[in-house]
């Protein structure tokens, strides 16, 4: 007679932690965790010891002290009696300013060059290839200092604009002055201003700008509603009403009305004494940084655009033609939506690179956040740990925001496969 017995119960042995794949991953993770904690503890321990021996404490009180240095290119009011925090904020705005300007110019140039690189014209394609290789293979820092040096050495000084036999003249009908001290462009002025809106008592937002932005957004929204209605009519009847001029009017007319109501006019730069006065003064450091970053990034964007267009197989164009679509519609409805899916993610990561590269502003003395918080503030107060921590967090926040936008877009346009 046989009896069934349970298989021998496997008792847990210590060696199973290593040799049994069920437990091994746990062991590895625990060991990794312990190593990581030990490492972190070691670093923190070293830091506290070192700070103690230097007689420093980690504190951020220095941010409320007066900065004591000037920032010549700024978007909001600032004097040297303001705090370090405000100086950093001015720097942050400067970073964002050059990043946005750079992204816009780089995109325009990059798309232009990328499309021309695919031109059937052999000569044009070669010239654009040379542009791309030239800018991609030379460090961006070299381009920045080169642009700065060229601006300073080759442009006329304000003195050259003076007198009856001036050797230099202003551009665009005396509205814009390009000098070796920077570029002076007209500034928007309002003869019936609305005043400023203080935000947290820290800085003022001009109400005019706020109003214009609000009107613009409302106009765009209205235009979209009209477009939706046209869609509905098209769905129902098959005929699409022509609405583009109504949409344009909805966007533009209120804007123009608001501008007229506030008495909009331009203030032009004028030569006064040894320098120009009036207008907006864009300093050489800003211009050099902006142009160098844009030209450099444009070379990368051109390659992305080219790759995106080449990635769409020819069958798509042919299929669209077979359906009877005209070339314009083929481009708009078939090629571009697919190409954009390939183009946009690397494009955004290039925007991110441009923003990070704008930290090289310190090489030409443009006061971005690296120049203020990570430069003069850090050197004046000797608070390296706090300043660098804040600097890194700011850049990290910008990066994570941009990559969050990218992930959202990727999720939205993802190909839904079977």
């Amino acid at each position: 007679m046989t009896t069934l017995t349970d298989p021998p119960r496997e008792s847990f042995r210590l060696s199973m932690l290593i040799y049994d794949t069920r437990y091994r991953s746990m062991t590895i993770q625990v060991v990794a965790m312990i190593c990581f904690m030990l490492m972190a503890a070691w670093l923190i321990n070293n830091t506290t010891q070192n700070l103690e021996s230097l007689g420093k404490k980690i504190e951020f009180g220095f941010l409320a002290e007066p900065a004591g240095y000037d920032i010549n290119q700024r978007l909001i009011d600032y004097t040297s009696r303001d705090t370090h925090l405000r100086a950093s904020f001015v720097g942050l705005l400067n970073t964002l300013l050059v990043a946005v300007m750079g992204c816009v110019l780089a995109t325009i140039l990059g798309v232009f060059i990328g499309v021309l690189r695919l031109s059937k014209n052999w000569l044009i394609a070669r010239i654009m290839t040379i542009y791309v290789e030239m800018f991609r293979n030379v460090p961006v820092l070299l381009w920045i200092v080169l642009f700065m040096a060229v601006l300073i050495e080759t442009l006329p000084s304000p003195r050259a604009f003076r007198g009856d036999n001036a050797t230099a003249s202003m551009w665009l009908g005396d509205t814009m002055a390009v000098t070796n001290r920077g570029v002076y462009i007209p500034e928007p002025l309002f003869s019936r201003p609305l005043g400023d809106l203080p935000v947290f008592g820290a800085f003022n937002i001009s109400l005019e700008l706020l109003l214009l932005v609000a009107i613009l957004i409302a106009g765009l929204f209205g235009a979209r509603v009209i477009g939706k209605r046209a869609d509905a009519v098209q769905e129902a009847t098959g005929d699409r009403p022509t609405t583009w001029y109504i949409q344009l009017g909805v966007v533009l007319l209120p804007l123009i009305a608001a501008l007229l109501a506030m008495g909009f006019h331009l203030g032009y730069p004028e030569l006064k004494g040894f320098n120009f006065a009036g207008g907006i003064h864009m300093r050489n450091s800003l211009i050099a940084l902006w142009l160098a970053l844009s030209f450099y990034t444009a070379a990368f964007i051109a390659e992305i655009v080219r790759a995106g267009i080449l990635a769409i197989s020819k069958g798509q164009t042919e299929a669209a033609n077979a359906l009877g679509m005209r070339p314009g519609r083929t481009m708009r409805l078939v090629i571009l939506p697919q190409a954009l899916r390939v183009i946009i993610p690397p494009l955004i990561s290039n925007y991110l690179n441009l923003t990070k590269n704008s930290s090289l502003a310190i090489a030409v003395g443009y006061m971005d956040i690296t120049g203020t918080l990570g430069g003069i503030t850090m050197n004046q107060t000797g608070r390296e740990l706090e300043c660098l921590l804040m600097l890194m967090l700011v850049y990290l926040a910008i990066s994570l925001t941009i990559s969050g936008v990218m992930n959202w877009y990727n999720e939205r346009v993802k190909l839904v496969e079977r």
Partner: protein
Amino acid sequence: MSDVSFVRTEMLPQQAPPATSVGLVGWSRENLFSGPVNSILTILSLIFIYFVISGVLHWAISPTWAATSLGECREMIAAAYGEGAGHKACWGVIRERWLQLMYGFYPPYPVVPSANFGAAPEGAWPAFFRPNLAFVLLVLAVVPVLFSNLPRKMLWITAAFPFLLPWLLWGGTLWTPILVALGFVIGYLVMRFAAPVVGTIAGFILAVAVPLLWWGFAIGPLADAFSSVLPLAIPEVQSRDFGGFMLSITIGVVAIGCSLPLGILLALGRQSNLLILRSICIGFIEFIRGVPLITLLFVASTLLNIFLPPGTNFDIILRVMIMVTLFAAAYMAEVIRGGLAALPKGQYEGADSLGLNYWQAQRLIIMPQALKISIPGIVSTFIGVFKDTTLVSIIGLLDPIGLSNSIRADQAWNGIVWELYGFIAVLFFIFCFSMSRYSMYLERKLQTGHR
């Protein structure tokens, strides 16, 4: 019936295509003048090219090689072409400073420690013998890795190079690199002979621990002892004397060489299903990629010593190398992760079904394919790292851009722009462009072709 035939019985001889569709004319009709818009574009670009080339030639052809200052340059140009010669190059700055742009303040004859520029001391090696030899060795070490049809024995140079490079550049006794290399041999021997006795895991731990102890405690005394018997030493050179392209290439080579293995490990960590390991890798990669390199260099120059045990103070170039390597490794990890993600799942499953363990599968099946897919990304990361070495000028190291700032601040050369920056740009261009061409060659060579 007449034998009139209405059908031609023999073929006409083939005629040459019309003259306008072959040869140069045909080519330019097709590629340059295919329509009115294209013709206008072609003519405009021809005018543009003419202006650029004539402008550059007019500027570059300038007999100022012997000048010692910008003022002298202007006199020479005025003497040769008269007053209205326009903007002309001043090549004297390159002749006078090119050694500095190449080597910084590296002493040319470090056989005698105090001998700097000037006449060679008695019995000295040729000028800049050590950095030049290091560069030649670098080429010899890299070439067998790049081109697989070269003799495999050259890989021994590649293996020895990481130990020879610091010795050649910084000097000191040869015993240190030999003993450091011996550490790897010891680790291998331990793995080979101790593992069968104590088991694989314990053997592995021993093989890591014994060399670490060796490097930590045995090398210093042993190197002293050996060098007291037989010095084998060359004079030391301080890090602050490093500069120019030598510095860029040194930092670039170290960062490139170390970032690839580190990046592979990080990518594997990020792809693994061990939660804690993955989170650590993701955190590290995203942090490094989220901040600009310049902030990491600030950390290297001001903060790194605070994180280390009190009293540690090591070389600024070494600190910069560590930071640039970490920076490059994070980017490399993302590139390789892209390659890993692009592999079809069947490859992983095939490796599993063959009974390969994790590391065998990675080494034999996954990595060769993933790395092949990511070659363009890897090489463009390399190029990026090499270009980013210029950022060290901001923290005060004398790379070519740092030197160009001091040259332009010099009284004699105040106002020089194009010659100096052009020279630096051309050198960087040569390095980066040849790297990108090599990656294209490699892609073609490795293409096993499924399409």
